[in-house]
């Protein structure tokens, strides 16, 4: 029995019935990591010994008959920008190569309380800036479906780990599509929750007003189970929404009758691989067959989302990343005086893409340019949010591709930042609006997974899980896994 292949909910029932122990399960996943990690390189840090120890503790608790959460004993991993007390957290940046946080992120705390087992920390684009994992300050992660293709970014390591069965589930972060685009490239489920639904405390900030932590899982049921643990108000996060969180498993019903689904025409035009567009139509047809109503809708300001995003995200990043100066932790490059020390540390510690965005953001906020760039971008953001508000007056959710293409090859876009930025064109507006987005695998093109994206109303995660679940129950296109055999 290959335990590592199973979903969390399958494993949960095995653990509850005592058919397997968490230690056995953890060992199985660690063995899998040993076997395939050399090819995939999804992890920056693996904490095998600690994981086994944790698993034994959970097994003991279970033996004592203590009450357990459904995820107790399940091995998982986290993107390396989520703080873990005592475990190196690097953001895949040389500047934080040795940073060991003295505290846990709220989501880490919640997952540990739920009894999940931390296997390690996943690779990413440095400081979550990138769409291919080629910007990792350490090494690139590979797509388990095709080792010459990128896993997407910036949660590429977290998506690849789930796809390659190196973790039962992982947490990523999504600022402009960083959970959903790699989920699509790697053929797993990825959810970017509503802004403020999942606490950001302990998530090393890229762009504070856009960042959101979310799960990468093997299926929709697992997504609901993880969301149940990580969502909810956090007094340590002022932007955390003071709302009640439902039990998301109650949305796992095979029924979409009467749901109204809008398909924004702006997401179906130029630049979208026609084979992906075809899958999207197939998904819509299936949903109609199941009783939903799908219609074309317009989100007229979509074309301005990308420039607005790069202004806002870069502006916030230029400020958020200013603290990495070599004074208190991380890399320090010695120099004759303090200013030179700042400069050398930052020059050597940050990679190209991070520097590009810091420069862009610094420029956009500087006096004389603030109104023309930053303020204008904020106005665009309002218009984009209004587009969604309008659409949701009529529709329960929206359906779009997650990415215009499937996973591209290493090196294909790395020297053309603008082409790279375009790979997030379908996901970025969702972050600007603060609404939730779910990427669900749906078929493959030339052996590489395709992702479709459902966009929900604020706090409308339940509806997204519902449509995703209905598709999972009614078509095999949501399980692109079989293709992977033989690659790794």
């Amino acid at each position, binding site marked *: 029995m290959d335990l590592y292949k199973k979903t969390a909910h399958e494993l949960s029932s095995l653990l509850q019935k005592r058919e397997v122990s968490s230690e056995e399960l953890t060992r199985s996943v660690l063995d899998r990591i040993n076997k395939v990690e050399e090819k995939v390189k999804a992890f920056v840090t693996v904490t095998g010994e600690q994981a086994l120890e944790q698993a034994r503790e959970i097994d003991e608790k279970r033996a004592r008959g203590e009450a357990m959460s459904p995820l107790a004993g399940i091995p998982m991993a986290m993107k390396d920008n989520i703080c873990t007390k005592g475990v190196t957290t690097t953001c895949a940046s040389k500047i934080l190569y040795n940073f060991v946080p003295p*505290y846990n*992120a709220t989501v880490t705390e919640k997952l540990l309380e739920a009894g999940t087992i931390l296997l390690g920390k996943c690779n990413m684009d440095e400081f979550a800036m990138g769409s291919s994992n080629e910007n990792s300050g350490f090494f690139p992660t590979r797509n388990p479906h095709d080792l010459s293709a990128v896993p997407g970014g910036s949660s590429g390591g977290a998506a690849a780990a789930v796809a390659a069965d190196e973790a039962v589930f992982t947490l990523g972060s999504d600022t402009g599509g960083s959970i959903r685009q790699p989920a699509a490239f790697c053929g797993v489920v990825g959810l970017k929750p509503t802004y403020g639904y999942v606490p950001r*405390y302990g998530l090393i900030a890229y762009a504070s007003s856009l960042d959101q932590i979310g799960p990468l899982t093997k299926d929709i049921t697992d997504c609901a189970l993880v969301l149940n643990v990580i969502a909810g108000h956090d007094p340590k996060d002022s*932007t955390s929404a003071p709302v009640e969180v439902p039990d998301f498993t109650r949305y796992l019903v095979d029924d979409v009758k009467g749901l109204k689904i809008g398909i924004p025409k702006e997401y179906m035009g130029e630049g979208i691989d026609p084979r992906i567009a075809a899958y999207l139509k197939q998904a819509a047809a299936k949903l109609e067959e199941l009783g939903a109503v799908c219609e074309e809708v317009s989100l007229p300001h979509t074309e301005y989302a990308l420039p607005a995003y790069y202004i806002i995200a870069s502006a916030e990043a230029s400020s958020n990343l200013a*603290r990495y100066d070599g004074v208190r932790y991380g890399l320090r490059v010695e120099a004759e005086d*303090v200013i030179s020390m700042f400069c050398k540390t930052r020059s050597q510690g940050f990679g190209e893409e991070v520097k590009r965005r810091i420069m862009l953001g610094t420029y956009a*906020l500087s*006096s004389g340019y603030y109104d023309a760039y930053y303020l204008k971008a904020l106005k665009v953001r309002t218009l984009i949010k209004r587009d969604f508000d309008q659409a949701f007056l009529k529709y329960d959710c929206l359906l779009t591709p997650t990415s215009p293409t499937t996973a591209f090859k290493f090196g294909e876009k790395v020297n053309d930042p603008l082409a790279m930025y375009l790979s997030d064109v379908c996901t970025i507006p969702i972050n600007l609006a603060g609404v939730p987005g779910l990427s669900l695998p749906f078929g493959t093109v030339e052996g590489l997974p395709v992702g479709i994206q459902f966009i929900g109303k604020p706090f409308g995660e339940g509806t997204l899980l519902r449509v995703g679940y209905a598709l999972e129950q009614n078509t095999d296109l949501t399980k692109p896994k079989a293709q992977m055999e033989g690659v790794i």
Partner: protein
Amino acid sequence: MSAQYEVVIGLEVHAELKTDTKIFCSCPTEFGGEENTHVCPVCLGLPGVLPVLNKKVLEYAVRAGLALNCEIASFSKFDRKNYFYPDLPKAYQISQYDLPICKKGYLEIEVNGRKKTIGITRVHMEEDAGKLVHGGATIATSRYSLVDYNRTGVPLIEIVSEPDMRSAEEARAYMEKLKAILEYTGVSDVRMEQGSLRCDANISLRPMGAKEFGTKTEIKNLNSFRALQKAIEYEIERQRDILEEGGKIIQETRSWDEGKGVTVSLRSKEEAHDYRYFPDPDLVPVVIDPQWVQEIRDSLPELPDAKRERLVQEMGLSEYDAGIITGSRALADFFDQVVAEYNEPKTVANWIMGEFLRLLNANNLEVAESKVKPRSLAALLKAQAEGTISGKMAKTVFEEMFETGKEPETIIKEKGMVQISDEGALAAVVEKVIAANPQSVEDYKAGKEKAIGFLVGQVMKETKGQANPGLVNKLLKDKLG
């Protein structure tokens, strides 16, 4: 000040708020403590942390704003002020930029008997930075510097005045009044020597009658009233000399060199920072319920001006005495408490203005640090009024009270200082003194009134100061006819 120029002064004052915990985390704000012990991931700005506003900070900022007659914004927000410095752990300071919590206020000052209203542009909240401890004598000669982050995240309000002051005296009077108001409202402990009240002064000169402002300079970190006044006076002279010689003032930041008594250039406008202010995305906007503002308004104590008025009108103190006593809340409270026990305001004021302030100043102590409690001073004054001790004794007793904190009754008893008012007991001493000083007796009889003073002194000496001087005087006069 030369007649042909008018000086224009505006002050920016930073006051540390007297909250128990920091502005965005629950670390203690307590002054002192071993370096880097009052810190946590949040105030150290570690990767991933988020700020959460301390509601008490908001309350204190509103309280200060109300006491300074400001409008309180129902909607305000926090912004980031970005700059690199080793004592600033996030490389930005969380502050307020275009939407401060309070604006459009004023306070009244009085200089040489003339009252004047000084406008307050704004009051905003912000976090303090840490402190650098240099390895050598100065920053330039140190091989290394250490950082203490205990102060990082201590809440501040910045109070920005309108450029309404026209002399160093006015600036000082403004600062003194501001200090008193902040102390009365209880929002700050206003200790300039500990840096909990700091001041930057903007100074420019313009030809008399001109409407346009001249080029200004800013003097940073003036940490005493004396420094404030001296630095402004120096800077006015410096600018006037330049202008009179046909030169131009350079817009720059200067610092006050206390030792040399001069201001020196720190940096020019060309090197000025571009702080790249923008709304802090980690903090939600501050939305205030007017009901809450009203509650704070209702809880404001009697402020210095009102109190001074009351002391003059109802207690008959002079304007001058009332001004000094109400200049500090601690002193005014002390006064009130003594009067509550011993209702002779003028006597109490004399004692406070005289002995009490003299000893405080001589020992460099704050009112709060005094060992003498108001109740004890009242007891001493009662003893004097009842004739138990003489005025001179009272001063001796007070000195000991000040030193030891003992109750007056205890000291009087210990020293056997009870005044002798028994005529029979004194008569013998008086006889003795008359017999021993025939010359003085003769002088007195010959009309030299002064001689009686000498004889009284001798009786006092014989009785070790315990004789009731009034009674001795009477007895002597009776005897000598």
